[in-house]
């Protein structure tokens, strides 16, 4: 047992990236070593040729290797609890069908998100459950050329609920507080924030696509202090997944939730009613607003903070309206 970092596997993955698994004997991880052995066995005529089932076999191999890693604890999480191994093999594959087939998400303006270095992605928030945050995250992971992980700042409730709390951290979220946001940005991460918070998630259906107050502009302060650019992102589609006609405030208080939504199907149809509607989604990233050149005095000037907050909010509101007009129908 040594105290040094374990060396990484020398092989390349299917995507052509350096394999991230720890290396064993021969400088390869268990997966790639076995692949090499299997290939050698096939060549020597010992192993049977899987033929048409080769892709399935490769998948099973990766799944088994993943299970082995999880069972033995051979993976790393960062100091915020982000677990890229779990995201890549479990969480993202679970969300992908929703992204591709249910909501048919269309992404625009990915070029406005930098390939590396910090940026604060600020979006509108709606739809009772934070699916919009998950879809924006998946859009950046799957479709951005640099496959960036968005580190979303989540509400405190996400970290007190059992089962949800560890998943929130493992998928890369952290608590919405300026300490965490600044630490992530200083480390060069892409941070996502939805300043409307519960006011956006829990607003009635009649207020759809009308952005709520943008908190107290805390996100602008964070961007100014770290000099990270702000990238506004407008999400169209999330407003229709759970059309909330009523908010049962008393029931919500009983459970300790910020709101208790009643939709035409929920809670009427029970768990079936909790299936989100298949609206058509458009996610558009807008041109970044630089903050680094505003200087040190800017963050002490409440006027600058207010103006920037309004500028970001207006950009998102206008983009939402533009994309709403461009959409053929809610479910088209």
């Amino acid at each position, binding site marked *: *047992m*040594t*105290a040094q*970092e374990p060396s990484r596997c020398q092989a390349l993955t299917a995507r052509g990236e350096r394999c991230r698994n720890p290396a064993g004997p021969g400088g390869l991880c*268990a997966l790639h070593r*076995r692949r090499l052995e*299997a290939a050698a066995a096939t060549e020597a005529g010992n*192993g*049977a*040729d*899987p*033929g*048409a*089932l*080769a892709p*399935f*076999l490769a998948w*099973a*191999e990766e799944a*088994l*290797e993943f*299970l*082995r890693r*999880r*069972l*033995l*604890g051979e*993976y*790393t*999480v*960062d*100091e*915020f*609890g982000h*677990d890229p191994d779990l995201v890549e093999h479990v969480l993202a594959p679970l969300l992908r069908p929703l992204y591709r087939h249910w909501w048919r998400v269309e992404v625009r303006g990915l070029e406005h998100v930098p390939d590396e270095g910090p940026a604060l992605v600020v979006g509108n928030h709606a739809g009772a459950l934070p699916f919009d945050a998950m879809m924006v995250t998946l859009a950046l992971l799957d479709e951005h050329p640099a496959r960036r992980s968005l580190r979303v700042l989540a509400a*405190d409730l996400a*970290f*007190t*609920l*059992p*089962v*949800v*709390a*560890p998943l929130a*951290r*493992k998928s890369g979220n*952290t*608590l919405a*507080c300026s*300490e*965490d946001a600044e*630490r992530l940005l200083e480390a060069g991460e892409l941070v996502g924030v939805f300043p409307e918070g519960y006011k956006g998630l829990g607003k009635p259906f009649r207020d759809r696509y009308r952005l709520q107050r943008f908190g107290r502009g805390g996100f602008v302060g964070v961007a100014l202090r770290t000099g990270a650019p702000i990238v506004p992102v407008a999400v169209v589609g999330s407003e229709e997944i759970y059309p909330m006609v009523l908010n049962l405030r008393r029931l919500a208080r009983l459970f300790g939730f910020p709101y208790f939504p009643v939709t035409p199907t929920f809670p009427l149809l029970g768990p079936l009613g909790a299936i989100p509607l298949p609206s058509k989604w458009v996610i558009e990233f807008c041109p970044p607003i630089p903050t680094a050149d505003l200087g040190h005095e800017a963050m002490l000037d409440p006027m600058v903070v207010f103006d920037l907050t309004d500028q970001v909010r207006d950009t998102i509101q206008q983009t939402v309206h533009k994309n709403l007009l461009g959409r053929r129908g809610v479910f088209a």
Partner: protein
Amino acid sequence: MMARRILVTGAARSTGRRLVAALAEEPEVAAVVAVDHREPPAPFPAKVEFLDTDLRSPALVKAVESAGIDTCVHLGVSAEPLAAGGRTTMKERNVMGTMQLLAAAYHAPDLRHLVLKSTTAVYGSAPGDPAVWTESMPFDTPRHGFGKDAIQVEDYVRSFDRRRSDVTVTVLRLANQVGPTVDNPLTRYFELPVCPTVFGFDPRLQFLHEQDTIRVLLRATLGPAVHGTFNVAGDGVVLLSQAIRIAGKPPLPIPEPLVGSVAELLRRTVDFSPEQVGFLQYGRVADTTTAREQLGFSPKWSSPHAFEDFAASRLRKLVTQEQVTTVEREALATLRRAAGWLGGGTRPGGAR
């Protein structure tokens, strides 16, 4: 360099014994006064004078004043209520003991340096906490147990710092220690046959290898004196679920409403104080940049490596790496045979 005369409290406990032995080996150390209220299991080396006394006794005051002590290393804060003979005694020893020690130190003419071994437990464990604690962040005072004692001890040390400006005060907030020999409630927890967890929670933990504990204490005691408070922990974090898997133990998730009664059981078996259950639910991570930059200390063991070393040297694994690897290899071989049989047969032009 002047010959050093060092007083160490809590010297009979595992960390204390190893620090005293390491100090006694240093040529620049002329004498070590080892203080504890109980006998060490083995006698100390030659340079060491053992003072079998409680921190609250007048003998200590005399020792600090008369022995020409230049450095005081206070390790005597305990996290184990059962071992101390009850929570009241533990609090009494921790807080009153520190007050007495500092009162004596206030009148020690040659004292130049005070090192306090504190803990990251001062930050508490709550879902609304920042993900990573730096030393300067304000934190809510833990309301009971070891964390509360540790904060009160730190407070007394800070007020001592203000009154004796000629003494350099170094406060080390250590993460949970693991290693081949160290014995504390958390190591005993992982030595249980199953590890009870709070259902639906998976806290982030940091570990400090016992060798690094001694290294940082030696650095703070013998190196250039640095004033300040420093978090000390191995790099990286380990999730509780991950630690339990590395330990090769089955986890036992307890639903939140039942946690209280299981905690009571844990309290009796591994000597957990109540706030440590919160630690197993929400965890805690501290930033170690200041220790690196100002104290010049970087741990040799990362948190995962420290834990692996502890697990490899101390724990009897129920699930071993060989077992898992064998099962995986066999499953894969079966699949490959099945695929070869099915896929090879249906392939056009294949061997029929």
